[in-house]
């Protein structure tokens, strides 16, 4: 199967065979690849964990794959546990990815190589650490060449960050519907006037956009690079962009209901201790290689899971502020904790060319255990979703689920229902238990938390 998202590159494409991932290099891409492969940088960057670990297949291994068409060489890539997209990353993750991209480009330039594109989709996260995955983007640097991917870098990295930093608009919504990146002409109209006073921003955004808008297309006047761009100038451009991005203010979001949720919820200390104990015991028992934490907030219980034997955790939440905090901590401590913005009532769909260019979040998530602590009432009452659908969603994600069910007697649910009609007659533990059974699950244990009406359930998917 050809990975549909790699079809645009004529120098090669990715194929997936079973559990293994190969990159086919065509005759058009062979010369550039050979130069990179024969350079010490190939090993140095892999050893530093800066590019995806890969190996060149021998000719007998290539023959075994029996591939047809233009196949000049094949490399096998290490399989990543999760593929995520920039429109799922919190602000601080995109900032980290942008700085990482620039730093890698500077390192490549020092050794006589460059990057031929600047797609944010070429970066993935291993835990909370960025990793460059598109080996064929690396090519030898030709003296005086232009940085043709400058515009792409602005659209994929700088523009979404600026949007989020200077307005209350989360970039993920725009980036999700515009896979080529943010429309720069539209962005310049949304940014405050003071951003025009920043000469670096003026150079990299306002000047090029102004020039593009005022250019009149003429068939007999084709614009081509007319002068050589000294390497020093390209380096300076990369450093200027790093300077802008590193100093961007954190997003102006105002107060969000989830900010400080872990401190403002309705638990007392004993309830919290009891909850931590149950989470710790269950994770130790299952010792999942991947655990999904739905509604992870700032990642308190995700970190408990990591410390109790989960090899990696994928945290999903709707709130960017909480995810930013969790990401910065996970990145600093190099935790295997990946954080994604997801509204489960409207999750990332399959989209792009033929709806196959980017995969839906549910087709990419695989785990041994899913944790949904104090989330069900937000989906069932907050978003009017049927309990049976919620139960099916949980059991699709993983064979083991740890669910905290919050009843209508809980102060937080009472608060939710205080300003709306209670049409949720079916919302109770009995109905949820029935929904679990109908969805193909068994409740292995049920534990009411100390001094609380909340109940923790360990659910297991029945064998088919």
């Amino acid at each position: 199967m050809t990975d549909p998202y790699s079809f645009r590159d004529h120098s090669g494409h990715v194929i997936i065979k079973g559990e293994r991932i190969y990159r086919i290099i065509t005759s058009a891409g062979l010369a550039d690849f050979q130069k990179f492969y024969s350079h010490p940088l190939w090993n140095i960057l892999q050893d530093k964990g800066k590019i995806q670990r890969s190996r060149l297949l021998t000719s007998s291994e290539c023959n075994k794959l029996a591939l047809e068409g233009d196949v000049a060489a094949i490399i096998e890539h290490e399989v990543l546990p999760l593929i995520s997209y920039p429109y799922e990353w919190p602000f601080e993750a995109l900032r980290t990815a942008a700085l990482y991209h620039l730093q890698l480009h500077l390192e490549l330039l020092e050794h006589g190589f460059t990057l031929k594109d600047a797609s944010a989709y070429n970066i993935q996260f291993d835990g909370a650490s960025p990793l460059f995955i598109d080996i064929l983007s690396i090519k030898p640097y030709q003296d005086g060449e232009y940085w043709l991917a400058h515009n792409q870098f602005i659209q994929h990295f700088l523009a979404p960050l600026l949007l989020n930093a200077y307005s209350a608009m989360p970039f993920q919504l725009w980036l999700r519907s515009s896979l080529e990146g943010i429309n720069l002409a539209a962005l310049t109209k949304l940014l405050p006037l003071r951003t025009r006073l920043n000469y670096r921003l003026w150079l990299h955004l306002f000047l090029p956009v102004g020039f593009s808008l005022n250019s009149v297309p003429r068939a007999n006047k084709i614009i081509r690079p007319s002068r050589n761009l000294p390497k020093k100038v390209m380096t300076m451009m990369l450093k200027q962009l790093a300077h802008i991005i590193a100093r961007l203010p954190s997003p102006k979001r105002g107060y969000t209901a989830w900010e400080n949720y872990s401190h403002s919820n309705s638990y007392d200390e004993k309830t919290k201790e009891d909850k931590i104990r149950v989470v710790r015991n269950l994770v130790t028992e299952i010792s999942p290689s991947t655990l999904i934490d739905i509604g992870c907030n700032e990642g308190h219980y995700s970190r408990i899971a990591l410390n109790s034997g989960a090899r990696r955790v994928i945290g999903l939440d709707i709130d960017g502020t909480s995810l930013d905090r969790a990401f910065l901590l996970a990145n600093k401590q190099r935790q295997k904790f990946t954080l994604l913005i997801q509204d489960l009532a409207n999750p990332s769909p399959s989209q792009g060319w033929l709806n196959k260019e980017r995969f839906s979040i549910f087709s990419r998530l695989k785990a041994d255990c899913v944790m949904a602590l104090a989330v069900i009432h937000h989906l069932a009452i907050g978003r009017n979703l049927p309990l049976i659908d919620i139960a099916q969603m949980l059991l699709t994600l993983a064979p083991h689920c740890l669910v905290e069910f919050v009843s209508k007697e809980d102060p937080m649910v009472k608060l939710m229902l205080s300003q709306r009609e209670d049409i949720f007659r079916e919302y109770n533990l009995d109905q949820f238990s029935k929904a679990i059974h109908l969805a193909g699950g068994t409740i292995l244990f049920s534990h009411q938390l100390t001094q609380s009406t909340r109940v923790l359930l360990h659910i297991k998917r029945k064998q088919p």
Partner: protein
Amino acid sequence: MHFKIAAILMFILLSNPTYAYIDPGTGSMFLQTFLAILAMIGGGISVFWKYLKNLFVKPSKAKENKDSAGLGNQCD
């Protein structure tokens, strides 16, 4: 009449310039040509400045000593 004026205003205010033939990257190309020219001018000025400096400023003693020390090392 008011409707026509409103429609014209809407068209002027809301229409976006077309990118059908001009790639948005053209602006970035322009920026890099602009920077390349600036670098060329900067390079020219710096060469000229060094030339002027050499006309009016004699090399300092310390520098002369350093240069000769360097030659000495080479001979060794």
